[in-house]
């Protein structure tokens, strides 16, 4: 039989999954990505053709929808999506310009 105390210690070390473990990471950067929907090829053709921003984003921040949505609350503003976007529809702008 496992001692009750040992059991409690093991259970206490279990970690719960939470969104925003490090706080609101959206505050890490001044610059945020903004999608120009007129240029975005997914919106233009209205079907799943590109979604490079969803694929290359290191975080699960951008959704694979039409149009792609960005979770600004947790976006760290690295700028990878703006670099990889084939039609250059994403631009990094100041937070006030969103």
């Amino acid at each position: 039989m496992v001692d009750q105390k040992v059991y409690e210690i093991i259970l206490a070390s279990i970690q719960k999954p939470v969104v925003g473990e490090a706080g609101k990471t959206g505050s890490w950067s001044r610059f945020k990505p903004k999608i120009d929907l007129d240029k975005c090829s997914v919106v233009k053709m209205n079907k799943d053709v590109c979604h490079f921003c969803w694929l290359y984003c290191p975080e699960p921040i951008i959704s694979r929808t039409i149009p792609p949505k960005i979770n600004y609350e947790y976006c760290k503003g690295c700028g990878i999506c703006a670099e990889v976007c084939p039609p250059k529809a994403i631009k990094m702008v100041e937070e006030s310009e969103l």
Partner: protein
Amino acid sequence: MADKVKLYDIPEEEFLLPGNRMCAGCGLSLIYRTALKALGPNTIITVPASCLTVLHGMQGFTSVDKISVLNTPFATVAASASGIEAALEAMGKDDEVTCVAFAGDGGTTDIGIQGLSGAAERRTNFIYACYDNEAYMNTGVQRSGSTPYGSFTTTTPIYGKTEHKKNMPKILEAHDIPYVATSCASYPLDIYAKFKRAKEIKGTKYIHILSPCPPGWGFSTKDTIKMGKLAVETGFWPLYEIENGKFSLSTPSKRLLDPAKRKPIEEYLSTQKRFNRLSNEDIEEYKRYINQSWEYIKSKNLTTQLL
């Protein structure tokens, strides 16, 4: 050989939660996100002290959803994976649950190599993934066995590292394990395909993934994908897989067999601050090193074709 994967083959389900502790533009974050999608929810991951421990959060809370993770001491990642695998076998859940050891380059090339070598020798049925950011980034950029030649770190501050990178995939290849592959954070489709393939094979699988690190290498966070692509396109980091002794180059590296198709190495070295004090002789040394490693790949490729 790994199947070709298209972007829309990758599932939408996320195992990583937003708001985690990784730096902006982290290559590892992208690798982990893609790898978990390939591995699926029936996975047990064991992680040594590394950047990945940081991602798993402080006491009480974590940013990884739906997957069981075990944090272990530095040297024991492959040993703990062996233990997990033995338990799964005893419970008869060996086929449905995948055991994965995810370690950094320090935990693989320096500290964890004895455990890894032992597990490979025992033919433990698990995947060992090494994400290689080429130094001990978590503790503040110290030199590791995987740091490339001439790279400046806080423990090689004057001349840079004077030795070349340890070729870990070659060491694992010598263990005669069924699957060895290299990949890079800039090719998520390649990562996904290789993890999917590794999951299907029984035995010890080893995947070595180059992970560009913006603060450690000294480049802007937006250039993570560009840096990884340059490492592959200059021929510095060839992507290949060896399945049961059969060698095959992956698509991004296939055309680089011809030296004329490789981008000049200066393009890769000049864009990172850690290489900013390299002399012309060092660059010549790099060219010699790349040619030498590709000569080896060429001979491997040729013998596989003859088989």
